């Protein structure tokens, strides 16, 4: 599909909006629908869209496999680290109230970092699975 000018132009126009929408879903999740899972899937879908239009090697240049694999683990580790942060500051595991002097602000901070962890892991896993499947058909 590399030589389809319409697809390439439309794709180039759409992908930035998809990524911005993913960030909106992520950070607006406190007020409207959305959160880490949805934002992770949307951002992964943006990269998959890019890979379908411009080919897998181009997508691998944008999001290298090593980075994607690191994301898979980093998100889960970030989530666990937030839990231990609460533990170190004198609360229970995954206790957000102690993360700031003001308990409500602490809750905000905890939810924010947990959602970032979910976002990173989900988008990493989705991309990795897609790379795995797409990479196989290239080899056959």
């Amino acid at each position: 599909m590399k030589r389809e000018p319409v697809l390439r132009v439309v794709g180039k126009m759409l992908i930035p909006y998809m990524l911005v929408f993913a960030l909106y879903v992520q950070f607006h999740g406190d007020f409207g629908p959305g959160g880490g899972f949805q934002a992770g899937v949307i951002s992964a879908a943006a990269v998959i869209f890019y890979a379908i239009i411009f080919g897998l090697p181009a997508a691998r240049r944008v999001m290298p496999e090593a980075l994607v694999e690191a994301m898979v683990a980093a998100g889960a580790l970030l989530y666990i680290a937030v839990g231990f942060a609460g533990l170190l500051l004198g609360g229970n595991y995954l206790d957000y109230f102690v993360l700031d002097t003001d308990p409500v602000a602490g809750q905000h901070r905890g939810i924010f970092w947990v959602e970032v962890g979910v976002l990173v892991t989900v988008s990493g896993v989705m991309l990795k699975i897609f790379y795995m499947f797409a990479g196989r058909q290239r080899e056959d």
Partner: protein
Amino acid sequence: MMAVIVIALIFQRNLFSVVVLAGIYSFLMATVLVALDAVDVAMTEASVGAGISTVLLLGALHLCGGEEAKPLQRGWLPLAVTLVIVGALVYGTLRLPAFSDPHAPIHTHVVPRYLEQGPKETGVPNVVTAVLASYRGYDTLGETIVVFTAGIGVIALLRRRRRDKDGR
């Protein structure tokens, strides 16, 4: 409309149209969830069910061909097992409280506390996010670990295949 699509799904032998119909089914499911005021779940259904899984299934289809193989024997035993399970599930739903009954146990246990105290305690207006990330933080941690494990599993399975090919 969903019933029509499910029946079409059952009788369809071309796997490509099965995948497309399943995507349509997911979008219809998402609209049903919006009608039930579960916007967060609807968003997940539309993006995961209709988006990512359609792409992944199409990728798998490209690897294994687009026609369903003829079944080897008549599936009377699977049909009987399915019917028994469906019967048991329907029997289980008979005694459930009516839909959106305000006195159902699920609405009287912790839900009032979440709804009344949640915005004050967490400062987050969206109760779904508050419950998901804060009150039920352990569950969400578990879900994240499940997603992580799925990714690791796929990596482990497909990597080994590739190394075999190199060794030959």
